[in-house]
């Protein structure tokens, strides 16, 4: 049970990068981008092929992210230059990428079990530094050593990577260019009237978004030890679930808080996933349905709650007014 939660934190951190990408397209640019389902795999495909081919895992990972950047830019161009509706542009790109991913991989599945990946590299350095022995100490003090994870290297290294990505993103979104990007999603015609090529910003924003998604895909295939062409199915919904869970549970107006919320949302989603898998009557294949239900309830509930609250308040005030009137009426009658 506890080890399942550690697993959830590990994969939650890796998927958090994807969720940050979805946050850029879905929230900042207001562009529901289905490219994600394809570009996630593209990142993994490029990375796995390069690793199997003997490239350095770091180069392979960056190349995977770059492939996602290109995919996102094409989606952006389809929308801005081709005037294709955002949803449709994303769907088209997703379908196209399925074939392209298969071409890149050459086969539907690439195992990487005996290859040097980013994670085997980190693991090696980690063991050499003997950091696990240091990190286990607080668990021993608290007397819960048996609940400690077998190793900390994934959590710690991913935390460093994810926080670096978050910091860079926070920084970028508050630069002049970043402010313009956010304003483009908020009021495009206004930004245009201040001499901005909004098409450029949308295109580059989509590129950035999908670069993060592909980076996440590149890390996932190395974490899992294999790449699969169907890895990305439903990825956009998982990204949305993370963004929405994060916003509802931890969200605040500030950018710094929002990116943090998205990361935490991704971890919470993975924890829900891990728990759901342990319930007897649910199967792994039910997860997509559960994800859809999570997103639907996260989208519907806040609105409904607010409305019913407003209604309750209104009824209360009416009742108060009614009581007041009756009292008034009584007084009036007695005065007569």
């Amino acid at each position, binding site marked *: 049970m506890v080890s399942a939660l550690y697993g959830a934190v590990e994969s939650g951190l890796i998927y958090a990068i994807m969720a940050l990408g979805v946050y850029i397209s879905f929230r900042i640019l207001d562009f529901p981008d289905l490219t994600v389902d394809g570009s996630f795999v593209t990142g993994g495909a490029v990375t796995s092929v390069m690793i199997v081919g003997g490239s350095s895992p770091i180069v392979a990972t960056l190349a995977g992210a770059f492939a996602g950047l290109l995919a996102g830019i094409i989606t952006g161009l389809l929308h801005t230059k081709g005037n294709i509706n955002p949803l449709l542009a994303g769907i088209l790109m997703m379908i196209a990428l399925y074939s392209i991913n298969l071409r890149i991989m050459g086969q539907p599945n690439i195992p990487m079990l005996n290859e040097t990946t980013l994670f085997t590299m980190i693991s090696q350095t980690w063991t050499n530094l003997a950091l696990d022995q240091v990190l286990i100490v607080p668990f021993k003090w608290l007397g819960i050593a048996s609940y400690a994870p077998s190793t900390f290297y994934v959590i710690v290294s991913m935390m460093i990577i994810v926080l670096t990505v978050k910091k860079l993103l926070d920084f*970028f979104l*508050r*630069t*002049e*260019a*970043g*402010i*313009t990007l*956010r*304003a483009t999603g*908020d*009021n495009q*015609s*206004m*930004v*245009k*009237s*201040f*001499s*901005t*090529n*909004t098409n450029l910003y949308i295109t580059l924003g989509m590129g950035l978004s999908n670069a993060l998604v592909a980076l996440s895909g590149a890390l996932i295939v190395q974490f899992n030890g294999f790449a699969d062409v169907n890895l990305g199915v439903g990825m956009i919904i998982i990204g949305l679930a993370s963004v929405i869970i994060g916003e509802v549970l931890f969200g605040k*107006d500030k950018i710094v808080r929002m990116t943090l919320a998205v990361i935490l949302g991704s971890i919470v989603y993975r924890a829900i996933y891990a728990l759901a898998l342990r319930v007897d009557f649910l199967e792994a294949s039910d997860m997509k349905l559960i994800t859809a239900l999570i997103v639907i309830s996260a989208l519907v509930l806040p609105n409904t709650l607010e409305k019913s609250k407003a209604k309750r308040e209104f009824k209360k005030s009416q009742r108060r007014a009614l009581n007041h009137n009756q009292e008034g009426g009584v007084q009036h009658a007695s005065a007569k």
Partner: protein
Amino acid sequence: MLQLNNIYKTFYPNTPDERRALNNISQKLSPGDFVTIIGSNGAGKSTLLNMLAGTLLPDEGNVWIDGKDVTSWPEEKRAKLIGRVFQNPLMGTAPGMTIEENMMISLGRTQNRSLFSGITKKTRHQFREHLQTLEIGLENRLNSKVGLLSGGERQALSLLMATFTEPKILLLDEHTAALDPSKQELIIKLTKDLVEKQQLTTVMVTHQMEQAIELGNRLWMMDEGSIIFEANEEQKQDLTVPDLLNEFEKVRGKRMTSDKALLMK
């Protein structure tokens, strides 16, 4: 500063809906000129303004701004020279962004947007000084979301954002029409102050004849795509609303069609 040469524009040509929106417009504005344009609905005022802003291309003719032929420039390129305030207060600002972020966007009209720096102390100070001139307390709310401001405040902010980077041309598209009378007064006062302070060449479209007479040094009256009456600074001084209505009747042989224009006296 601004020159229009023989501009023609027809919408839906060669169909039953064909409408001549602009019919051989030639005009010239000197630096610092402030022209107000009045006319009934469909007279071509907005088309003319869109032509200046670059949202519409003319069928014939060309537009010169600051000594450059800008006719074929796309909207965003032309916006380097043009500040614009729309009728709808929601259009000129980004609601989900803070006041200072909105100001930053407008600053980007004249300078390249940096990838490496955000809003510095210096620019923030500059923003605060500019906002002070509005005298509605926005300088203390730099970090408030613009969506939380009232329509009048948003329009005042739009006006400031359009003017403080000193555009060559300022376009005002019925920018008080969506506000209540007291807010209208505020925006008109701010318009006067800001335009005078920076000696901006301004084109303002309005439905209200009194406004058109009160503001600016020139006046054009439009109907059916042509400028049917013009007043220069001297003529404008003793111009009254009945004069304008008479003028319209004289030229067109009919009463002003727009009820709105009549209601506004």
